[in-house]
């Protein structure tokens, strides 16, 4: 009797062990199911590189290049801001901050990770957006730049915590060896620790960027949502994620617009898949 019960339990455990694979497969399957239909109306090339996104005009124009460029632009901006600051903060926490300060800083970073993105978007709207508007004398502060700054901020917890882990896991004797040769603390960090942790830091950066590309609410609230090819970083843009979030509510189930938004979902899924697998390879290379 007990043996039968345990047999059943162990089978259930195995089944649930496979749940993650099942759900990843299911997500991809349903994105494909709803999204591939769009390619009956527009070729994959025209979809990805079409310059106009007018999903509700007649006939609809379903080119997502403006959205891809919008996502790329804010992501690039966010990366330029967040990588040096994030890695710098990780080095400070891992190497320089004394015990108590270190714990407080880590708690602060965790706090940032916990704040919902819609709240950050709201705060960005009332603080950052007017600031950008006044600073650059723009007609609106809802720009790619505002989005980049906000997203950089949101990528920080990922970058800092993973990069700090990477620095922390370097064997002590690397550091001691450098000190023994008379290197200053900074020389040790710059010449020994950072190179030794490079693959972990790279993974941190990639995952941070993954977070940025996938971020939806904050970016939708502060980038102005203009689906045109961006000419500068000081104009409103629209990202892939924001397009889906903003338009799916109005798209009719089974319409071309609906299929196109799912096709954007496929693009986002594939991007995040590539980023996560590559980052994981970097993290495993370290060990």
């Amino acid at each position: 009797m007990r043996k039968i019960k345990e047999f059943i339990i162990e089978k259930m455990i195995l089944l649930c062990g496979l749940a993650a694979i099942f759900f990843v497969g299911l997500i991809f399957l349903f994105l494909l199911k709803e999204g591939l239909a769009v390619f009956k109306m527009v070729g994959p090339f025209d979809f990805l590189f079409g310059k106009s996104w007018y999903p509700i005009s007649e006939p609809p124009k379903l080119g997502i290049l403006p959205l891809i460029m919008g996502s790329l632009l804010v992501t690039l901006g966010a990366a330029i801001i967040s990588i040096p600051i994030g890695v710098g903060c990780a080095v400070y926490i891992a190497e320089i901050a004394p015990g108590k300060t270190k714990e407080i800083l880590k708690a602060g970073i965790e706090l940032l990770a916990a704040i919902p993105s819609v709240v950050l978007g709201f705060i960005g709207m009332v603080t950052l957006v007017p600031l950008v508007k006044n600073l650059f004398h723009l007609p609106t502060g809802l720009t790619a730049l505002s989005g980049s700054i906000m997203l950089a901020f949101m990528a920080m917890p990922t970058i800092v915590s993973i990069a700090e882990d990477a620095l922390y896991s370097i064997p002590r004797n690397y550091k001691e060896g450098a000190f023994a040769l008379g290197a200053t603390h900074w020389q040790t960090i710059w010449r020994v620790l950072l190179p030794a942790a490079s693959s972990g830091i790279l993974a941190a950066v990639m995952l941070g960027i993954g977070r940025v590309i996938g971020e939806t609410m904050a970016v939708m609230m502060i980038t102005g949502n203009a689906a045109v090819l961006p000419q500068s970083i000081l104009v409103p843009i629209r990202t892939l994620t924001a397009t889906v979030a903003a338009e799916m509510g109005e798209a009719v189930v089974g319409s071309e617009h609906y299929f196109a938004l799912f096709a954007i979902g496929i693009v986002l899924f594939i991007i995040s898949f590539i980023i996560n697998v590559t980052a994981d390879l970097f993290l495993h290379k370290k060990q």
Partner: protein
Amino acid sequence: MKRNPHLTQKIAFFLLLLATLLIVVPVGLIVVIIIQKGLPAMNWQFLTDIPRQGMRAGGIFPAIVGTAYLVGGAIIFALPIGLLAAIYLSEYSKENILSRIIKLAIINLSGVPSVVYGLFGLALFVVFFKFGASILSGALTLGIMILPIIITSSREALESVPDSFREVSLSLGASKWQTIRHIVLPNAIPGILTGTILGLGRAAGETAPILFTVAAFYLPQLPGSIFDQAMALPYHLYVISTQVPNVDEKIRYGTALVLVLLVLFMNLMAIIIRSKLRKNKKW
């Protein structure tokens, strides 16, 4: 000119400190601003009344209740599956290609953009299973989204139970499942709880996954069943800050404050449990 290494170090460390402050100071500011500007809105009526006058007055009670339903539903779905999956990874799986794929799948699941979860929930639960935009669809979508958080933290908690406990239990004639049930799980509960609460916090704060699966724009009443639409705090904040003009700032900040407090409270609980666990560790 020869560079002075000590001067270089001073400059470098100053810049590193600056980078740190650039992150931490805004975090502090955000929390302070929300508390300062949201506190005046805080009163019993705000928390317990339905929204009135097109959300320009009244309270946020339906949104609080909606979020509670969603979070509760998500955890009912995700905890059993996540825990069993963690048990599989920690106690049963061997270092082989299958466990490698499972781990990769978990990483991917946690990396999928939240809006893609929204699309998935729409396609599977709302359209395919015909649950419609409902609490059920939203809770299941959120449940799948927090699954990786629960698996990862539960697995860490299970793996931190020393192997020697398992060996002792087995050597006394306990079966593998008895060992897990009576020795491993009880000692991993604080860690599992921590992960569960973090998952709850994440589910409470997410907007994109519930946009098309459950969220009601303006529904000044409480949901009657799990097949009803519902308001939810994060979506409500989005709506009143971008979609509805002329909403009193107090109400916006007040809603943000409630949401932040809710999420921070859960994180604080998790931190407290975690530190208690470290203190009481018997091995």
